[in-house]
């Protein structure tokens, strides 16, 4: 009994640690005072200022476009990679493939960013593409990172999947591509959605890689936030953070309801 109460205390402490900064951020986003730690009354003025801040709005729109593009690329590539890893058994080059797909998960972002930049510079030198840095280069870099995460998510679902349905369809004469679209995809759909969202979030959140491969005029939201926060505390960032937390909470809440209702 004593033991389990110790574990409960540990859990409470852990959750408090995880959520206190988020809660404080949300509370102080409604603080009228510029001094973040002094309460100066309730106000929504930082939200107003945030919505007037053209630099943030432009950066936010660019980030959303990049995130959607790279998440879609990561989903497609990740699905193919997961199929290869789960269904192909042994083939020549499997070891290298497996290494390449898991390495981005543990590779420090700073190395990835530098490496990506050096590749784009070398490519531009060699074949003239990509012309400068911006949307395309950031999207490619994010797709590469996102696909590694997407593969992990899809692969574990694919490994648990009952293959008899697919075999039945094959026995009835369906071609592999038809089986894939009519049976495999619907069965693994929740993991596909999770993989897309994960890649989307990672892209939307990345400062380090984007800082290397972005060019003038292609400032993403995290880069914008990072450069203003470096100079000190900024109440508009509190408001932005609150909006992000609420959006994430709503999406996760809806996803959770959907996934539990099905069972």
């Amino acid at each position, binding site marked *: 009994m004593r033991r389990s109460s110790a574990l409960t205390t540990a*859990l409470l402490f852990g959750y408090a640690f995880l959520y206190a900064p988020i809660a404080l951020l949300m509370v102080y986003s409604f603080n009228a005072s510029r001094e973040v730690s002094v309460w100066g009354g309730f106000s929504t003025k930082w939200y107003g200022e945030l919505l007037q801040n053209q630099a943030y709005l432009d950066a936010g729109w660019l980030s959303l476009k990049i995130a959607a593009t790279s998440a879609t690329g990561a989903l497609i590539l990740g699905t193919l990679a997961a199929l290869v890893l789960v269904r192909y058994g042994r083939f020549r*080059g499997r070891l290298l493939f497996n290494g390449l797909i898991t390495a981005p998960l543990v590779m420090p972002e700073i190395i990835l960013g530098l490496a990506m930049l050096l590749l784009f510079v070398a490519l531009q030198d060699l074949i003239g593409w990509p012309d400068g840095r911006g949307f395309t280069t950031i999207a490619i870099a994010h797709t590469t990172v996102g696909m590694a995460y997407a593969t992990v998510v899809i692969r574990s679902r694919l490994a648990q999947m009952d293959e008899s349905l697919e075999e039945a369809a094959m026995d009835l004469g369906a071609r592999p591509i038809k089986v894939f679209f009519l049976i495999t995809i619907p069965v693994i759909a929740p993991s596909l959605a999770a993989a897309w969202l994960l890649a989307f979030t990672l892209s939307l959140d990345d400062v380090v890689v984007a800082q290397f491969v972005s060019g003038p005029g292609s400032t993403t939201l995290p880069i914008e936030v990072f450069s203003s*926060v470096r100079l000190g505390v900024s109440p508009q960032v509190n408001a932005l953070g609150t909006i*992000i937390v609420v959006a994430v909470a709503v999406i996760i809440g809806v996803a959770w309801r959907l996934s539990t209702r099905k069972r």
Partner: protein
Amino acid sequence: MRVAGGRREWGRRLVLAVPYIWLVVFFLTPLLIVAKISFSEMRLGIPPYEPLIDWAQSGVAMVRASFNNYALLFEDDLYVQAYIQSLTIAGISTLLCLLIGYPMALGIARAPERSRGPLLLLVIVPFWTSFLIRVYSWMSILRDEGVLNHALMGLGLIDEPLVILNTDWAVYVGIVYSYLPFMVLPLYATLEKLDPSLLEAAADLGARPIRAFLAVTLPLSLPGIVAGSLLVFVPAVGEYVIPNLLGGGDTQMLGKALWDVFAQTRDWPSASALAVAMLVALVIPIALFQRLQTRLEEEERR
């Protein structure tokens, strides 16, 4: 029939080729380029490095590899210190994550089955919200006139504000906070699979809970401990945002040093050499992680 078989074989190859080529072009090649440039000499211009292979007039390739960039890393105290400090900070943070994360993972694994899902979700949710903004939030908590100091002084525990922001302490807080979910998730995965009858057997044989934990739970959760530790340690070594926002002038970490050399000095060869030096320190942990990952997947398939 042979035609259909041929087409199927072709399709199989395409499914393999697309992600494979992508990874080779956009992941393996960039890393090889980093390695290559780390041996080049710096020059002024675009790109700011000398070609490694020079086609001399006679058509003979001259290889101009240079170890200068690496020599520089060892000569400059700043980099040696950044190297040592990165590994120390990452190591201690990993240990702290383990100390906080293990009881949490165990607590979730021992909770009633119905509440495990929501509890786990609560660990994951912060990871989905912006990392940058969560780190920023600590800036306003840890400042001299921040929330923490206000609270501690209000309680009468301290008379003067503690200086935490812009010190190594703040970096530890930031890393432990940001990477805690990466520790809890793999730990939970191994602890949840643990057969409770093993602990019952230990209890029946008279082992006290603490003994049962040390003899049964802890050793069996070793794969989770290793996986979680690597997921924290490896990115922490290269961490850039946290030392930048929370650390002070004397917090030198490799990630920050690399960016400074790259962006301020525009010395791409030295930045590449730093990246290679960082990778050398991480090769063993990364390889270990991959082996573990492969083994877990093989178990999953059975």
